[in-house]
């Protein structure tokens, strides 16, 4: 019997994503659904009883017992290499959630939304995009996705398909596609000024990715005049 809010999910689908990542679909009896932006805790138990718990953002939103995670392999990690390299269809995975009532978007929100993701930071933002689409929301959604190179994208196919009410801007920091107008470089205040929903329209802004990326973006946004209270961040740690 699993206690303390932990549920046992079964892996029903796995899919390689980005260069070192994976999308994992679980069926979790008892899962109550989740709002876009929430995460879950996943717990692994070794034969001697040792446990490791890590948080993963949900790429899916809504009701039902089926959920999708996307995990990036952190080379010296304890849990992510297992989830990306070892976990198989049919395996069980203990999860707890949904968690986090703050970094969320609900379909009843009508204001414009600016999503800014770095690397695997796209995951909770993807849940918001899917929730927006499923609700046929008319709120304006813009995504600015910062990546080292094209091949590092999660959900690349889904994001390159046109989606009503969603504008996607790709930004590359190391390797650009041939003929790409913007030279490879980290995101700057000028990028944000050019591509993000202007301050005057009072967007809700969600920024997610490695800590260094999120802090640089949040600082730039505030300097551009965005209200800090309208900016929500989710830092994944790292630099």
């Amino acid at each position: 019997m699993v206690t303390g809010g932990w549920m046992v999910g079964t892996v029903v689908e796995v899919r390689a994503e980005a260069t070192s990542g994976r999308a994992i679909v679980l069926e979790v009896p008892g899962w109550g659904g989740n709002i876009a932006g929430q995460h879950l805790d996943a717990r692994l138990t070794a034969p001697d009883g040792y446990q490791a718990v890590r948080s993963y953002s949900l790429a899916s939103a809504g009701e039902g017992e089926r959920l999708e995670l996307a995990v990036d392999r952190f080379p010296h990690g304890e849990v992510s290499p297992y989830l990306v390299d070892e976990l198989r269809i049919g395996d069980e995975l203990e999860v707890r959630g949904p968690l986090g009532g703050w970094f969320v978007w609900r379909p009843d929100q009508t204001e414009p939304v600016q999503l800014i993701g770095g690397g695997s930071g796209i995951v909770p933002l993807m849940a918001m995009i899917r929730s927006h689409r499923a609700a046929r929301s008319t709120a304006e959604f813009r995504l600015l996705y910062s990546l080292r190179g094209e091949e590092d994208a999660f959900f690349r196919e889904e994001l390159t398909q046109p989606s009503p009410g969603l504008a996607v801007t790709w930004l590359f920091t190391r390797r650009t596609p041939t003929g790409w107008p913007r030279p490879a470089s980290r995101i700057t205040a000028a990028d944000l000024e050019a591509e993000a929903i202007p301050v005057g329209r009072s967007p809700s802004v969600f920024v997610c990715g490695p800590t260094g990326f999120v802090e640089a973006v949040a600082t730039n946004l505030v300097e551009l005049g965005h209200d800090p209270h309208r900016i929500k961040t989710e830092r994944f740690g790292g630099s």
Partner: protein
Amino acid sequence: MRGHVDGNALAGILSELQLDVTVRGRCAGCGDVAVLARAVVYGDEQARVARCAACSGVLFVLFTEPGGMRLQLRGMSWLDTAPE
């Protein structure tokens, strides 16, 4: 965990105390009131230090051991579950 993260990352462990990260708290150091999700969290799974985003003062320290958890709350004046 490497680097620091937002208080939002504490949602799972705080759920064991029936607390959500949308709970608001007042920093005992500078008086700033903010949701726990906005705290700046350092450390690792065993010892997490949550600091006030405004003044960097320690709000609380959360220790997690195999047997349970200890929450050291000395840096907060109060917690309030009423929404923002």
